[in-house]
């Protein structure tokens, strides 16, 4: 059953890193695929990201992180989402994430990790297939 509302995605760029090529390409690809995309801009704290997710009432959050700080930052974002009752929001991560860090991120609540070389098509398909939209 297709929901009436378009899928809403928050593309978030936490941490101090400014390399936003990937985040912007993903944001654009999701838009081209018909989703509504809100891009946080750079250097958002986990708290700011959780607040934006709540206010924008998003179905999914894509976190772009390339600096190696994912083990600290991503679990905190997940915790804050849970605390705000947003456990249904799909969380995906893209960036330079070594294989060995993936289990821990999944345990924290991340549904999928997209590593270097992932295509925008894979990301679009994953979101479409896994997002839980409230009517």
């Amino acid at each position: 059953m297709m929901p009436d509302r378009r899928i809403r995605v928050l593309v978030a760029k936490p941490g101090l890193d400014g390399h936003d090529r990937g985040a912007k390409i993903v944001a654009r690809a999701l838009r081209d695929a018909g989703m509504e995309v809100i891009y946080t801009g750079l250097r958002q704290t986990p708290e700011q990201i959780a607040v934006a997710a709540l206010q924008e009432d998003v179905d999914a959050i894509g976190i772009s992180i390339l600096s190696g700080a994912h083990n600290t930052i991503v679990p905190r974002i997940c915790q804050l989402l849970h605390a705000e009752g947003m456990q249904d929001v799909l969380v995906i991560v893209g960036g330079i994430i070594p294989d060995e860090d993936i289990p821990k991120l999944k345990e924290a609540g991340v549904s999928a990790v997209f590593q270097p070389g992932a295509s925008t098509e894979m990301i679009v398909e994953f979101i479409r297939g896994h997002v839980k939209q409230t009517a």
Partner: protein
Amino acid sequence: MQKALKPGERNPGKGLPGRPEKFTTLSGVPVETLYTEADLKGFAYSRDLGDPGEFPFTRGIHSTMYQGKLWTMRQFSGFGSPGDTNRRLHYLLAQGQTGLSIAFDLPTLMGYDADHSLAEGEVGKCGVAVSSLADMETLLAGLPLEQVTTSMTINSPAAIVWAMYLVAAEKNGADWKKLSGTTQNDILKEYIAQKEYIFPPAPSMRLVVDSIVFSARETPRWNPISISGYHIREAGSTAVQELAFTLRDGIEYVEWVRRAGLAVDDFAPRLSFFFNSHNDLFEEVAKFRAARKIWARVMRERFGARDPRSWRCRFHTQTAGCSLTAQQPYNNMVRTTIQALAGVLGGSQSLHTNSLDEAWALPTEQTATLALRTQQVIAHESGVAGRVDPLAGSYFVEKLTLETERACYKYFEKIDALGGMVAAVEEGFPQREIHEAAYAYQKAVERREKIIVGVNAFASEEERPVDILVIDENVAKHQRQKLMELKKTRDNARVQSTLETLGGAASTDRNLMPYILECVRSYATLGEMCEVLRRVFGTYEEPAFR
């Protein structure tokens, strides 16, 4: 069998099955099947090339190039604590590296100390953590600073980190007049591409101008800026955009420093550049050659520079990090070799070759050594270092150089019409152009119009065989501890007074370098100085991405 092409005959149509329908450079510039003398009508040796070492320097800035002196092998390095990086720098010198290049971690790049809440998870990760003069002293311990040249990749807080270097060198007994090296200090490309900015453009430009003016007086062998296209390319630009935005940034800096009262020949000889070298060998060589030619013209004609040293575009090259793949990482060695070769054939003054594991992490000692060996093989075994501009006269390379030059001047016209680079950045123009190019490239890869071996073709399920460098989380604890001790033992009254004086000077138009140096000498931290400047200058948010 296909008929042989006659000179001047164009693309005969589709090739055999499996070949692309149309051929372009990596950046999407269409290329013909064959180039002949018909492509170079009106080409004039003395105007378009000139001998090596002669205006317009298309063929190189020195007459004998690498026969006279090899490029500097300068591997970018920095991770963990200042002690960790100090050991790596000593190791690299022992392996035959000829110049130093220091990478700082994100908190340092953004002007935060290791104990700031925003530094959490980032200390020592992407580079070395430096919060104070004490860290800089550890970082440089035992290095022969009057003999080696040191490059530091630092931008928004460049004036502060450079001041730390100068004071640490002075304490080591080195003479400022003999210090040689480079601070990247290129804030415009931060707004355009890498986005490690702190302050708004105007006060940021003032810090750059202050350091260039100070350097012209106090450190005659220092390059106070490295005007960088590297990050522009990494953000997804084309080769032409990389070249055009970088050289237009250079024009902007020259205009600002001249407005501060310096004559062009008093500082232009110390301006240096930094380019990316990607996979398309000929496109890159054409870009490097065009860079020298355009800059020489700009300096002589647009700015009236008289000193031939002002006309020379000296540049560092780094192989393209964005070309490295996480899949089949050993292929990256091959990519890096081709890119390094382009850098050498293009006449770079110094070169960094990436390590094969850098799509995953900072390099290990083993992969960093292999990257250095790649340069040594090119320098000593391939024979290319014995020839000056060996691709000159190739119909294709000359034509591509001319086309690159023309496309670059078109961008200059657009940016001039927008009111210069600062205005163009505030309007989001270069950012948009780069994003469009990056998106088009991504789409081309996904449609398999561009092949990336191991990613969208020839993929395999092989194990990732590389060991990755992992930064110990204890580095952050150690650095925080060190800061706590520093703040207990330094003369805090003196720190307060130097910081207040800096804040006062920041609200005037005085050169800030002497004030920053006083803060550094009192062991005020990077974060404390940046906080003072944030209060006076404010901070920058980029225009929203729609």
